């Protein structure tokens, strides 16, 4: 995905306070989170007080105020997924990675999120990993998924180190 600069995002929306959510959506999409500096620029450009920008950015679930991990594991917590054991999946991911939902692992490789419903209820429980869907998940399958991702990250890291040494 090509990253759009903040100026490009704001193009045609300046001095239009009603564009606040749309602008923040695009910032979130392009940068993965909304930083304090971005909020200040958005506040200035749209003519919305900074406190209101912060209020909106912290009110809606779509917006993050700090960067997420490299691999984002999102657990669907819809009712259909819940009755098929989604809570065990949240416990599994948070215990295995040692973080709470919404947090990022210390190495920055993983974050665990939960979402109210992804609308794929028939296939629950659903977990997504950076937007790829995994359906009919069990705690065992999730553990293997996290292990596979960790191994891949380790391997990528080693390869990168080798390249540096070479």
């Amino acid at each position, binding site marked *: 995905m090509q990253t759009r600069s903040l100026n490009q995002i704001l193009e045609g929306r300046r001095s239009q*306070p*009603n*564009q*606040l*959510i*749309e602008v*923040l*959506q695009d910032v979130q999409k392009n940068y993965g989170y909304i930083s304090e500096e971005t909020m200040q620029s958005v506040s200035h450009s749209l003519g*919305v007080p900074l406190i*209101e920008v912060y*209020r*909106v950015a912290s*009110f*809606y*679930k*779509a*917006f993050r105020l700090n960067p997420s991990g490299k691999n984002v594991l999102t657990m669907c*917590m*819809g*009712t*259909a*997924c*819940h*009755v*098929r*054991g989604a809570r*065990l999946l949240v*416990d*599994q991911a948070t*215990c*295995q990675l040692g973080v709470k939902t919404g947090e990022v692992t210390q190495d920055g490789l993983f974050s665990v999120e939960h*979402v*109210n*419903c*992804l*609308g*794929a*209820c*028939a*296939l*629950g429980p*659903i977990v997504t990993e950076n937007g790829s*869907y995994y*359906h009919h998940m*069990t*705690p*065992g*399958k999730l*553990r293997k998924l996290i292990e596979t991702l960790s191994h891949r990250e380790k391997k990528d890291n080693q390869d990168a180190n080798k390249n540096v040494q070479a």
Partner: protein
Amino acid sequence: MPIKMSRLNSIREVEHLREWLREQRKNITTTVMVCGGTGCRASRSQAVIDAIGDELSRQGLNPSVRLCVTGCHGFCEQGPVVIIEPGNIFYCHVSPDDAFEIVYQTVMNEEIIERLLYTDPVSGKKVRTESEIPFYQAQDRQILSQNRMVDPCSIEDYIVVGGYSALPKALNGMTPADVINEIKSSGLRGRGGGGFPAGRKWEECWEAPDNEKYVICNADEGDPGAYMDRCILEGNPHLVLEGMMIGAWAIAAQKGYIYVRNEYPLAVKHSLIAVEQARELGLLGENILGSSFSFDVDIARGGGAFVCGESTALMASIEGKVGEPRAKDVHTVVDGLYHKPTTLNNVETWANVPSIILNGSSWFASKGTQNSKGTKILALTGRIKNTGLVEIAMGTPIHDVVFNIGGGAVNGNLIKAVQTGGPSGGCLPVDKFDLAVDFDVLSEAGSMVGSGGMVVMDEETCMVDVAKYFLEFLQDESCGKCVPCRLGIDRMLEIITDITEGRGTPEQLDLLEELADTVAQTSLCGLGKTAPNPVLSTLRYFRSEYEVHINEKRCPAGVCKALITYQIDPDKCTGCGVCLKGCVYNAITGTKKQVHVIDTQLCEKCGICRSECKFDAIRVV
């Protein structure tokens, strides 16, 4: 885009375009329809689409065979789904490796591939065509059936199947009053939750004295466990747009918004494409089809807040503000978006409009009950054999939906309840399954039709845990503006957490009921007023489960972690060692081919052993 696909300046030009498009497609002998909805995409249908596309080119079958990537068919559990017309052949769980066989055998030689056919879980028989599948047979698919005929990214497809016929009909020969009367006499009620008569809403908005008015499509489907709006908007966006256009014409609105959940990326994408296509053909913009009617639609992406399903909160959100509701002393039909008269309906309601205008109100009113007309789409999910989207005539008993369409419970379990209406609805026990799906009937029973979520629960579902789940959801989603909702939900959740963790006392149940009553009566908006419903309905029908948690410190369904232990059934354990290898807490011991044992002191109840055991030997007690 061919020359023909340019701005349409009159109603006659729409019909010409339709005839021309149909003529263009005369030579298509076979259509291969692959579902590209969110559910099937989760089952990797994109790879199937690519593989079939490649195979068709390789065999030199274009353009006589058409590959059509459709929206959701509703039977997501069976995805990726492929249908071949003519013949109505239905293949399920298709993988990219099947592409060659599908093209070579079925498309070119009209042979059926047995292994890709659907097996009915009730009779165990293979079913050859889509129309013979019991899941579909028991339904009345007025809206959903249109999804399988169109590529959602193609306005041509929508026009070919007869789309954009209702708008010209309304513009030519119907006055706004005629349109409103038609909707009123059809008895169409809002499909988003409240069930308010759509025609009355339109009429009040039409009467409101203002030159600037709005229509809004609520596609912020926040109810967890419901996804019919996603399916319609994603699968047939022009149907929703046409409904909005007719509504806008009736109330004299110049501008419309589709407020869509950002968690539905495909719905956002398809509605953006649809709006762009409609603009190019002049179906949106100035002087639509040469008339005096001018109207345009924008897409507003929701920020992910359940409270934005409430009309005033949704409108605040479109204005770029925090989605907090306001007191509705003056209704939004008079004082809505930007303080202008606004008609807000949800996706399914708008999608019903074109066919009511085309076929007449009496056609629509011929289905359903006295006060609930037409069909309703339900999201049938949970612990049941056939899960998916189900469209039924209003008035169909719950029993028929769960057992005839849903095929009953999984693993021979006993079905205990259905939860309808999402977090604002309630749970109904099996002995209420003879009740009809009807706005008023379900409300009287302590639940609601709501947006149509129907989650089936069996003996492995704990009703106290379900109530706790909804309270957690609502606590997270309460906007915090009014005290009863913000603090009342917190206190109810504290009590329920006590009960699920073994600290409950009998007096707490009365306190819970009292609190629930206060929250319901004193909250500002619909979210707070209905928030206690999951608690009240489970207390009403499943009080004994609460009592077992409190008095015996036991969770009969085996869900509440503090009250259960994992054990291995010595009669079923074969000593294969899978659980032992899987347990990260080293809580399982045993030697090969001997019965294994779980040390309950070490066990963290993570559930891995249970999900991995192939012999169903791990019990929760």
